[in-house]
Every structure is written in structure tokens, then in C-alpha cells.
């Protein structure tokens, strides 16, 4: 699970994919997750790090993170290891 190299992410949650010309907006939690993914963190690491800062159970973060990653794949923002 890697974010595609040239994806641009602004601090305000604006995401741009120069390969397709598509742009997206993410909310603050999404932005945080996106930055963790970009740093190459594993699902477990991301969940732990978010749980530290936010008032939420780990199971909820994990479920939401998987859903978020699915959406990113659907938008072609993430490439799997073998690609």
C-alpha cells in the first residue's frame, strides 16, 4: 500500500493527482491518515497514532481506515506493492 509518488497534498486537505488531472478534498482526519500512508506507515502504526490523539476506539479507526484506503484505491491514488 503506497501513495502514488507524484500526488500533491496541501495542508488544507486539497489533493491533486497530476497523472489524471483529478482533484479531491479530504477532511482533517483523512488528511492525517493520508500523511501517515505517505510516510509508509503500516495500518497498525496509523491506528495507534490516531488513537493517541483522538477520542475514539481502535476498532472504529481500523474500520474507517480500511474504508478510506478502499476509496483511495477506487480513485487510483494508491498503488499496491506489486504494481
Amino acid at each position, binding site marked *: 500500500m503506497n501513495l502514488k509518488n507524484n500526488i500533491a497534498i496541501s495542508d488544507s486537505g486539497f489533493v491533486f493527482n497530476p497523472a489524471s488531472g483529478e482533484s479531491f478534498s479530504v477532511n482533517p482526519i*483523512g488528511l492525517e*491518515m493520508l500523511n501517515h500512508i505517505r510516510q509508509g506507515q503500516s495500518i497498525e502504526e496509523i491506528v495507534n497514532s490516531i488513537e493517541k490523539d*483522538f*477520542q475514539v476506539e481502535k476498532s472504529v*479507526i481500523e474500520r474507517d481506515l480500511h*474504508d*478510506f484506503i478502499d*476509496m*483511495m484505491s477506487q480513485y487510483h*491514488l494508491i498503488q499496491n506493492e506489486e504494481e
Partner: protein
Amino acid sequence: MITKKRYERPVIKKLESNMPNKFGTRTEYEPVLHLDDVPVKDLISKYGSPLFVVSERKIRKNYQAAKQAFETRYPRVQFAWSYKTNYLNAVCNIFHQEGSWAEVVSGFEYDKAINNGVPGNNIIFNGPDKTEQDLRKAITNNSLIHIDHLDELYMLQEIAKSTKQKPRVAIRVNMDTGIYPIWDRFGFNFENGQAWDALNKIMFSGTMELVGLHTHIGTFMLSPNAYAVAATKLANLAQRLQQKYDHEIKYIDMGGGFASRNTLKGAYLPGTDTNPSIDEFAEAITSALINSDFRPKNPPLLILETGRALIDDAAWLLGSVIANKRLADGRRSTIIDIGVNILFTAFWYAHKITPAQKFTSYTEETVIYGPLCMNIDIIRDNITLPLLNKGDQIVAHHVGAYNMTQWMQFITLRPKVVLIDQNSKVHVIRNNETLQNLMELEAVPTHLATFDL
């Protein structure tokens, strides 16, 4: 101590610049936290979810506004509460306290009105299904019987002859008012002469007292002009009765069917912006009556059987989020505990749904499903909502008409209905169903009483 930040689920939204939408989509992220000054959270924690909430304040306000709209334009006006729209006794009694008569369409509703204490002569009995027993009761109570078909007319004649009582009757007239579809299944048709024929039969029989003329041209009518056409046609019949028999009818009943402020599915703009107001209907009807050729010595009483327009926005349905799901095509779906079994009107309205807690401005396009294990259980096909989590509460708006009568016990049990009175005090006006309630109606033959598995 470090306080942790509030969590919201992550969302990524593609920005579309190539798909303009003339009207834009309305985002319902303005939360509704209170209903008539009572916190939604408290209502759900005390009375459960889902929960119907009826506002006494709003009902009275709607009634008084409608009454004023007609009374400022016409000298003699009488409303009759349409029981089928919402026949919870507490709701009916608010209307009766305001001065409404009762308009019923079955023996069951008739008995309900009598039980509520409505005097028999203030009950209008409509509908195609009146049994002989119903009619005898209505005649004895001096109720207003609106004849739907010739079989009923002949039955009334026989009862009148055998009992030597003189029923007070009107006929229901159906007609072309320029709208589609024409409701021609109830009553007697104006254009083909059936209505005039029925009136002649009543006048010649001498066994009944013809007191009024009634029509009900359709439901959720968006054209006030159709009522003007209908009122003109009824005035025409009244005038012919006057000319031929020197008989003056005492009232003209224009029925109901005025659109509420709900939004029909497929409409571009919300009903609150586009649907005609009660004043527009009042203007159309009263102008047509006043300007007609009918010249009575006393203006006939104008009766209105408005239901939906008086109660729809006076009730809400509160519910909770059961789960969020991602559909195969990537769309978000949210499952709530309100199903089409209790929100029957979700089949034809795009009900306004708002969250009952504060949210950020991030939204998602969502399909809202009910809790039933049935494919038809869809509350909204597409709505832009804030990021709802399991357990969050929502408010469905404009649910006062027909839901609390057309609802069905299907898969789940029906919830409580509460009324918020004018002092913001909450009263349970219908309890939730229990398994016991339903079992009481069932019987299991002895040979089916036991089994081994």
C-alpha cells in the same frame, strides 16, 4: 491533562468541475437539536428510537392560519378534520378544540369520532364503504352522509322509508378540473350527467334531505386553479337545483387534497419553496364561489376537509444510525432504524433529514436505508449529509400526515408517539407495540402447539 480531539470519520471527495448542477444540492448539515424547545437527545433517551413527535403548537398554528385564510375571503367557513390523515385521538381532539368537525371514511373512523365526543351532526361520513349498519347509525345521529354511488343511494332510500327517518345527505361529485389523473372512481361524474341524475333521484324520492354538494378532486394538488374549476362546477349544480326545485343547498364541501410543504420525489426544488400556500387555495376557491352565477339567499357554508396541509409539518420522526456501509460502486450508505413500515410516505416524498447533533462542514453523498431486510426499504436514494456515525441521531421532517395511520406492523414493532404541548411538556399519546399486543390477536390450534426439533 491532555484532552483528546473529537474524532470524525475520514472522507475523501472527488471535486467535480465538469458536472454543473443548475440547482445545486442542498446540504443538510444544520443540525436540529431541539423540537419545540425540547432536546432531541432527551426525547430519544426517554422514549426510545425511533420516535414520532407531534407538535400541538404547530397544529394549532396551521389550523388558525388556514381558518384565517378562508374566513377573510368568505363569510361562512367550517373545517372538518380528515380522520384518515391522522386519527390519533389526541391529534383529533386538538382539531376539535379548535372547532373542526370530523370527516370520516369508514365505520371504524365514525366510531372513533363518536368516542372522541364529536356530536353526530358534526360528522361528515364519506367513502365508498358504508355498511347498512353504519348508515343506520349515521342517520340516527343526524350525521352528514355523502353518497358515493347509486347502490348507497338506494340503500339509504330503503332505510329512510322503513324507519321513517330523513337522512341528511350530499353527493360526492367527480369532475374534470384540468388536472391529470382525473379522480373518477369516487362519487358521481359531473360532465356525463351522473351527478345531476343522482341529485334528481334524491329530490324526486322525497325520502332524503339534500343538504350539500361535495367534491374531492385529488391529492397533493399543486394547482389552486383546479379548485376554482371544481368550485364553479359545484356552484353550477347548486344553481340548477335552485332553478328546478327552488331548493337551496346548505353547504358546499370542497374536500381536501391541498399539497403540504413536503418535496415530491424527482422535484428539482424543495416543496417549501414551490408548493402553493393555503392562501392560494383559499383565494382560488372563494373567488370561484363568490363570482359564480349561483345566487342564494344565504351563502352556503363552505366546508373544507383539509388534512395533509394542516398536519404534515407538525410532526417529526426521530431515529438513530445503525451502521455505515460502502456499496459496491463506492457510494456511501447509512442504515437507520426508521423503515418504510413506519415512514410510509418515503415512497413518494424526499423527506428532509437532518442530523440531531453538531457536525463539521464535511459531507458525503449517502443513500439512507431503513432497518428492514427488504430491498424496498429506502428512505432517501441520494442525500448529502454530514459524516454520521453509528449511534448518531437524525430527525425526519414533515411526517405528520398518513404515516401514523398507514404505518404497518411489519418486521419490527411500531414505536411510541409523543406530543409536545404548548408549554413544551411531553405526553405519550400512543404507546409502542409489544410482542404481547400482537400475540393477543393470534391463536394456535392445539395440534400445532408443540414441536420437536
